[in-house]
């Protein structure tokens, strides 16, 4: 998300280093947003007997956000108040506003469930540590995947494709994204029950 900002930063500063610095800032912001959403859930998982209810709740939340984004297609104006020099902050807020962290919750909860088949026997502290570890892993893997794909676009546009590619490759995916939030929520509900 936001890879054109990295291209802009590199072109404005006339140095390739700015491209990677910007990508890093975007990745850090995104990672923090993932962590901010996933960690509370990993703490909630401490209540092991409520696991099913938590998963259901997360799925419903996701469907709710997706539905909201389908009908409210306006972009949050507070994102436009973030100065271009604060890319990590922008990335964090953008990920929050789009529900990118929430999207990972059902996946994360699913992984936790398969790992902890005999969770009942584990000590509470181990369980917590394990959940937090998995949450971190999910957040890191996701952020790496996103940064890598965005980074490829940024590097490609900066070095070879040129800025004409920016307008050619840019599609309005708002509706697709909102629908996929709903879809993931529905699938996870089906899997739980």
């Amino acid at each position, binding site marked *: 998300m936001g890879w*054109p900002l990295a291209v802009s930063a590199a072109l404005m500063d006339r140095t390739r280093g700015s491209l990677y610095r910007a990508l890093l800032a975007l990745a850090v912001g995104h990672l923090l947003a993932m962590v901010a959403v996933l960690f509370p859930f990993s703490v909630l998982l401490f209540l092991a007997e409520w696991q099913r209810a938590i998963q259901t709740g997360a799925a419903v939340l996701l469907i709710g956000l997706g539905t909201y984004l389908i009908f409210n297609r306006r972009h949050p*104006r507070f994102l436009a108040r973030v100065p271009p020099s604060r890319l990590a902050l922008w990335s964090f807020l953008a990920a929050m506003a789009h529900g990118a962290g929430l999207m990972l919750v059902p996946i994360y909860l699913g992984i936790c469930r398969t790992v902890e088949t005999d969770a009942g026997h584990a000590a509470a502290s181990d369980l917590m540590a394990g959940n937090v570890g998995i949450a971190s892993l999910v957040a890191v893997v996701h952020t790496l995947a996103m940064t890598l794909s965005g980074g490829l676009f940024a590097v490609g546009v900066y070095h070879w494709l040129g800025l004409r590619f920016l307008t050619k490759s840019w599609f309005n995916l708002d509706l697709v994204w909102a629908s996929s939030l709903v879809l993931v929520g529905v699938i996870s509900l089906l899997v739980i029950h």
Partner: protein
Amino acid sequence: MNLRPDPTFHATPKLAMEAPAETLAFTLMLSADGSQPDGLAVIDVDPKSGTYGQIVHQLIMPNKGDEFHHFGWNACSSALSPLTGHAFLERRYLIVPGIRSSRIYVIDVKEPLKAKIHKIIEPEEVFAKTGYSRPHTIHCGPEGIYVSTLGGGGADGTDGPPGIFIMDCESFDILGRYEMDRGQQDKHYDFWWNLPRDYMVSSEWGLPPQFENGLVAEDLLSNKYGHKIHFWNLRERRNVQTIDLGENHQMALEIRPAHDPAKDYGFCGVVVDTTNLQGAIFTWWRKADGTFEARKTITIDPRPEKAENLPPLLQGFEAVPPLVTDIDLSLDDKYLYVACWGLGEMHQYDVSDPMKPKLAGKVEIGGIARGAKHPNGKPFAFGPQMVEISRDGKRVYWTNSLYSTWDNQFYPDDDGGQMVMANVGANGGLELDKDFYIEFPKGYRSHQIRLEGGDCSTDSFCYPSV
């Protein structure tokens, strides 16, 4: 909302220059005495068309006395910044304010020959939501549509300073004032910005009592019109620096930053220097420490003239001041066009080195005590005023009216509205096109021009040309 970015949005000024040429122009028509409603003329500027150089559609407003002046688009290339999230807006609506009535029209030009009014914002709403009046310059930017105003509250617009307000770029609702800390700014005219560097520059004309009923000579001679430019932290909405150009530099009007955002400089036109009647251009720039500086880089001398040939306002001076009323910069940041509305001249400066502009071309048309005719032999009332350059930089269009009451003071014998076009030579130079001459319907004068798909004073770019 589009599925793809609007094809008229361009990442860089260079890409905008390579885009297809304009085929239509939109020009505002104003009824100087308010006897007819103002309107929008759609003009065919496609040389291959059978109706080339003709007004092909007119949209006349439902109210009288608006006094149309400047206008702008609902969306431009600035939408391509991912920071704003507006990439899929359509460039479809013209936002047209009346500077006398404070009414704002939103005109849908998706089908230009069937242009229609989409929304009208009544003056009371502008007053109530902003405390400002007399809306003027329009720019689309990060938070929506920014509108500068010339007046504050109250009947004569002097209750509080004028400023900028923001409109939603989709619903066109007025969201409220822009400024959080205006510093010394107490007058307003134009503004523009550098989006990636996150700063804005604004200028000053005068307060409504200083212009609505004509130029106030005593105020001018006592240097009471605007002479400062203000620099703002765009997103913090804070005035970070004010530069006084010197109180003799009366009326600092158009702000034209370099289009390429990697360049940290721009220009500002000054109407008249009260010590010698010169017109002037200042170059302003941002220094490495983030502060700004400005220096006078162009002066244009007045022309001596016998008192009997001059309007009463100028007789005591026995000279025609150049009156630099509008300037415009080509998208490659190479040529600055300077309208000398008093002299009746359009100057073209090569500003490749922004600190050392060189006069590269000049056209004479109209003018006080000169009235130079168009090459087709027809008259040109007043002088060259609002100027607009095609994206490719090859054609320069302009109209002739400054502001109803000021037209009458400086050109008491003239009336009428014309729009002309000049071709730019491959290595500079400027020549009026004999075949392009628009005469507006009787009773109408003409003001700002907008070109289909964006032009050199609408679009802001988020990426540098490489």
